[in-house]
C-alpha cells in the first residue's frame, strides 16, 4: 500500500480540469439555490397560505429525499416520462440548485426570524409597508447573520456536487474515476481527488470569511 505521487502529479492537469467543472456547476447551482432559497425562505415566513404551504412542501420533499435520487429523477426520469432530455450539465446544475435551495430557504427563514421584532415594528411605525421593511431593514440584517451558515452550505454543495459524476458529468470525481479505472491505482487517484476537494473547500471558506469581514457591522 503506497501512494503513487507521480501518478497523481502526471494526472493533475486532468483533475484540475475536472475541478474547474466542479467550480462552475457549484457556482451556478448555488446561484439557483440562493434565488430559490430567498423566495421560498421569505415564503415560509409569510402570513399568506398560498405562499407558505407550497414553500413548506418543497422544503419537506427535498430534505426528505436523497440528493442522488433527485439527480436520477431529473436525468433518467424526465426523459422516460415526458420525453424531456436534459444534458448532464443542465440536469446536474438543476438538481444541485433545487436541492440546495431547500436548505438555503431554511437558513433564510431562520435568519429572518432571528431579527428582533422591534426592528419590524420600528420600520412599520415609520410608515413602511411590510415589503419595504423587509427590503431595507430585515433582509440586510438577516443577510449578514446568515453568511456563516450560507458559507457552510457552499462547502456542502461543493462536496455534494461529486454525486453528479453518476450522470457522466466530467467533474472532479468523474475524471479521477476515469484515471483510477484505467490505471487500477484507486487508492492514489482517490487520495488525489480528495486532496483537490480539500483545496477547493479551503478556498471557499477563505472567500466566505473575507465576505463576512467585508460586511461586518461595527
Amino acid at each position: 500500500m503506497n501512494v503513487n505521487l507521480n501518478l497523481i502529479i502526471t494526472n493533475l492537469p486532468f483533475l484540475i480540469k475536472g475541478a474547474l467543472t466542479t467550480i462552475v456547476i457549484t457556482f451556478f447551482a448555488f446561484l439557483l439555490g440562493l434565488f430559490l432559497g430567498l423566495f421560498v425562505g421569505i415564503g415560509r415566513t409569510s402570513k399568506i397560505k398560498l405562499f407558505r404551504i407550497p414553500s413548506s412542501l418543497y422544503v419537506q420533499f427535498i430534505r426528505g429525499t436523497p440528493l442522488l435520487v433527485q439527480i436520477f429523477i431529473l436525468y433518467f426520469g424526465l426523459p422516460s416520462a415526458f420525453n424531456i432530455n436534459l444534458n448532464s450539465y443542465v440536469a446536474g446544475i438543476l438538481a444541485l440548485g433545487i436541492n440546495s435551495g431547500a436548505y438555503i430557504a431554511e437558513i433564510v427563514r431562520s435568519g429572518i426570524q432571528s431579527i428582533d421584532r422591534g426592528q419590524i415594528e420600528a420600520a412599520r411605525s415609520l410608515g413602511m409597508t411590510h415589503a419595504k421593511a423587509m427590503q431595507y431593514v430585515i433582509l440586510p440584517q438577516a443577510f449578514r447573520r446568515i453568511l456563516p451558515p450560507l458559507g457552510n452550505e457552499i462547502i456542502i454543495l461543493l462536496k455534494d456536487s461529486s454525486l453528479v459524476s453518476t450522470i457522466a458529468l466530467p467533474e472532479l470525481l468523474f475524471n479521477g474515476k476515469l484515471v483510477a479505472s484505467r490505471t487500477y491505482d484507486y487508492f492514489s487517484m482517490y487520495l488525489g481527488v480528495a486532496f483537490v476537494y480539500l483545496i477547493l473547500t479551503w478556498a471557499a471558506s477563505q472567500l466566505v470569511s473575507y465576505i463576512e469581514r467585508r460586511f461586518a457591522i461595527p
Partner: protein
Amino acid sequence: MIKVKDLHKKFGDLHVLKGISAEIKQSEVVVILGVSGSGKSTFLRCINRLEEPTSGQIWFDNKLITDPEADINRIRQHVGMVFQQFNLFPHRTAIDNITLAPIKLKGVEPLIARKLAEELLQKVGLGDKADYYPSQLSGGQQQRVAIARALAMEPQVMLFDEPTSALDPEMISEVLNVMRDLAKEGMTMVVVTHEMGFAREVADRLILIDKGVIVEEGTPEDFFNNAQNERTKAFLGKIL
C-alpha cells in the same frame, strides 16, 4: 387630533383594554400612567395600529384609522413612535437611520434628507455622532437618535412608550430634556412613563389606566394633590 372611542383589545382570552375612550388635542402633552400589565403599551400601540384593536374606533386628524380600508402606512408617516428598547437599525449609522424613511417613503433627495437629519441630530445634542453605528452609542444617545428618526418624518404627533425605562439613571435626563423641548415647541405627545417629575412638570393632562380601563384623568395639579379615586391613591402611594 386623536379621538379614541370604546377601544377594546383582546389577546385570545385575555381582555387587555376594556373600553377606553380618550381625546388628545393639538399640542397637548398627555402622560399615561399605570402599573405594569395595565395595558398602557397596548393602548399606545393601538393608536398607530401596531396592535389591531378588537373593537372600537380611533380617529386621527378626523380620519377613521380603524377602518380596514384606511391607508395605515400613510397615516403612520404622521405618527412618530419611540420605543423602550430604541429599536434603531443596527446596520445603519445614526444619520442613515434618520434619513432612511424620508428618502424611501417621501422621496426626499438624499442630500436634503441628510441636511435635515444633521439639523435633527444637532437638536437632540448629537451633532458629532452622525456616522456612529448604534452599537457605538450609549443607551441615552441611541434613544435620542430614535427620537430624531421619528421626527424626520415630520409627524403631527409623537407616541413614547417608556422611553427612559431601559436607560441607566444618569442618561434619563438627557432624553427627558429632548422631550421637554419638543413639548415646548408645541408637539402633540402621548407619553407612557414612570417619570413622575416629568409628568408633573410637562404634562397638560394625566391618564391613569388600571386593568384596561381609565380610572382617573386630569391635570397634574388635580392628580397629585386632590386624587379622588381609591385606585389613583393606591397607585400614587406605590409610585411616590
